């Protein structure tokens, strides 16, 4: 099978632009997911969960760093700049991922919602798992290698979210209501999650992402199976803005302001 190295892609403008379209989505999803996870530090339901969830968030940031690292090697600028300095319209994460964890602010009376956090993270994990499984067969070798590496941690992230979903579904009336409410709200944001954007068919025909249709189908099947097992309504995913096309909500600007606040003070500083 033909495999592209960094040089093969960096020196071919068409391949380079196409690979980047996919990498922005992967990197931005994980960066924002990791950021929202980290906002739970000190607030998670109990101390053991705080440690567990904090580690998951840290790994999301680590995955984003891997993707941004590939973009850096393709000549798009340093990974830190790409993570911190790109504007909202340049971001390609799903709008579901950028939504806050709940009302309030991290520093002032956070009224974050655990059920919402878990449901949203669950959808992200199912999507990324389906996508990465396909990307292990990508023609772009560094991307295939990154997918193999990240999948090892992704399986366990997904197991963690599924366990919490089962726990909330079966624990008591209150947890059940919260889960159902979060499930219903997620479907109004998740429309752009399992979407590779305007370059979807080009990504497939170039071999960058093999089998796009089956990736999307896998994602929907797994979510539908979970709904069936837990007795939740079928999820009809839709969204007003499409993050894969650079359309975002107010929440993204707020997240980026906080995320890159220190970095922007002096991007040339050596930390």
């Amino acid at each position, binding site marked *: 099978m033909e495999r592209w190295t960094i040089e093969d892609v960096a020196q071919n403008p068409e391949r380079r632009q196409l690979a980047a379209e996919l990498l922005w989505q992967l990197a931005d999803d994980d960066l924002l997911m990791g950021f929202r996870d980290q906002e739970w530090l000190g607030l998670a339901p*109990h*101390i*053991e969960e705080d440690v*567990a969830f904090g*580690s998951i968030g840290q790994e999301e940031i680590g995955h984003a760093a891997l993707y941004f690292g590939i973009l850096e090697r393709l000549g798009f600028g340093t990974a830190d700049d790409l993570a911190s300095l790109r504007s909202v319209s340049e971001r390609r994460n799903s709008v579901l991922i950028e939504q806050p964890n709940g009302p309030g602010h991290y520093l002032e009376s956070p009224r974050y919602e655990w059920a919402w956090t878990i449901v949203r993270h669950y959808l992200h994990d199912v999507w990324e798992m389906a996508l990465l499984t396909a990307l292990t067969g990508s023609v772009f070798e560094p991307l295939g290698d990154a997918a193999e590496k990240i999948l090892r941690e992704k399986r366990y992230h997904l197991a963690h979210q599924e*366990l919490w979903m089962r726990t909330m579904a079966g*624990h008591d009336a209150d947890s059940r209501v919260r889960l159902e409410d979060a499930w219903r709200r997620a479907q109004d944001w998740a429309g752009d999650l399992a979407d590779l954007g305007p370059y979807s068919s080009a990504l497939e025909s170039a071999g960058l992402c093999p089998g796009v249709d089956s990736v999307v189908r896998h994602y929907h099947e797994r979510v539908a199976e979970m709904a069936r097992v837990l007795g939740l309504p079928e999820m009809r995913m839709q969204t007003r803005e499409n993050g894969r096309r650079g359309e975002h909500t107010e929440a993204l600007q707020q997240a980026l302001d906080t995320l890159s606040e220190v970095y922007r003070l002096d991007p040339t500083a050596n930390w």
Partner: protein
Amino acid sequence: MDERLDFDVYEVFAQSDSLSPHVHVFNVLASSPDMAMALAEENFFRRAEFVSLWVVRRDQIHQIGFHDREGFQKTPKAYRTTDDYKYLRDKWRYYRDHPMNPDGSPAAGGTVDGTMDD
């Protein structure tokens, strides 16, 4: 607000390799055995390796403690333990230093197990 505690303490036992026994390592607060396993792994085994992990709800562990031992006091019988045979070591040492001929007379050299030291 109705404060409930839906959590139990689970004691965690880990086996570091297939030839070692499970050893108690710590405990976690969790709402189910599944959750206890996940949290044990996430909190303590993200770097360390194990081949098998047991979680046991603490109230499922039945214990004989320090204060329940009256009825199980042992009669001291030193000959049941190796401690009572420590003098043998000195005896071996003495005969190594003082080798004998088969008739019991002192030998000119060598050791009791037959190897010669010259």
